[in-house]
């Protein structure tokens, strides 16, 4: 795991508010072969929404 991912994990936000990739994987029946796609797409959306929340909307 890279230092970047370790810090991300260390600062995991304990909120059930955002529908993260982990939630999606638990909630729906998803082909295991597609789980990486889901993680990538939702991971990106989550990051973008987080950045927008904490920059543009906090400026």
């Amino acid at each position, binding site marked *: 795991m890279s230092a970047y991912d370790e810090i*991300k994990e260390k*600062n995991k936000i304990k909120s059930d508010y955002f529908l993260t990739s982990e939630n999606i994987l638990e909630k729906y029946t998803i082909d295991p072969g597609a789980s990486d796609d889901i993680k990538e797409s939702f991971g990106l959306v989550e*990051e973008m929404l987080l*950045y927008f929340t*904490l920059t543009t909307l906090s400026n």
Partner: protein
Amino acid sequence: MENSEFRSQLFTDVLAGKMPTRVPESCGVNACAALELAGYDLRCAQYGYTKVLEAAEKINAKYDTDTLIGTWPAMPYVTKAIGSRTNVMGADGFMQHPNVHIMEPTEYNQLIADPLKYMWHEQMPRAFTEFSQPWPLNAFALLKAFLMEKELGMKMFMANYEMSLKYNKSTTPVLTAISRAPFDYLADYFRSFTGALTDIRRYPEKVLEAVDVLKPLMVRGALASTAGNVPTRENNRVFFALHMATYMRPKDFQKFWWPTFKATIWDVYTAGFGILIFAEENWMQLLDFFDELPPLCHIMFEYGDPKIIKEKVGKKHIIQGMYPVDLLKRGTKEEVTAKAKELLDVMAPGGQYIFDFDKSILRAKQVDWDNFGYLVDCVKEYGKY
């Protein structure tokens, strides 16, 4: 004439802790000053990017600065689309940050239990009037702001990059993302300046819990700027404008402000980012704390004794700032250049220094622009190693 590559290297060297060929300068000039200098009215010229870029072209063609100046507007079209109460246009068109209180002290438990949930349910609709509209108007407002910022931000970024090459400015990225000290975030976006200072006396435990739960958000906000990609220290630098620290009693600073800020900085640094800090106001009493931060933080100082700052902070970190910008209004050419040489004599030895004002030029009438040109030329000549 020095080209863009040469000037970029000056900044790359300084930010890496290496000795540059000469001291680079990064004299801050706000887009509003450039717009006014070009004869535009701030009340209408800040919308869009056309007028901003026209004004930036004029000022950058005229002054031989190391970095692009007078660009990046406050984007009132974004803040107005969401009805911001924290970022409003003043009567003369200049964007202001009113001391707004969004959260009541009785709501600390909600914030602490789930900060993101509290933000989206309570803080956002109060801070931005368009988000309190019924569905789907609130969703449209969010979408408009998100897309406008993304679209116009990319246009500005590309235009600025081309302008930097055209006018021989540095393209070394100094700032690529923004985050905050957790206590500053609590004060500026939830409890207000006065509310936060009152809370540390009335509800100290709640304040400590609040800054603890906000800290991961401050870290993740910085990390999110690379959209999941691993950063490089040279190309990804996170900016922290420090606000509340110097207004607090030292013992309150040590208890409520510093610990979560320090933890935020270390996490962002460890994740691979460079650090840029604006130490607002006078940090003379608190200088020793900077020694607890990772090496080569790029710290912009406003006020203080340059000799002491150089001695205490300048060996471990990179220092920028402290030239009194008001001298450009009241001083003669000789006084302006003499002061620059005096500051360079103290700060330049050993490197790790970028020349800059104590405060950016916000408005065109704030300075004599001939003096600005004399100053920039003086730093280039006298700042050679």
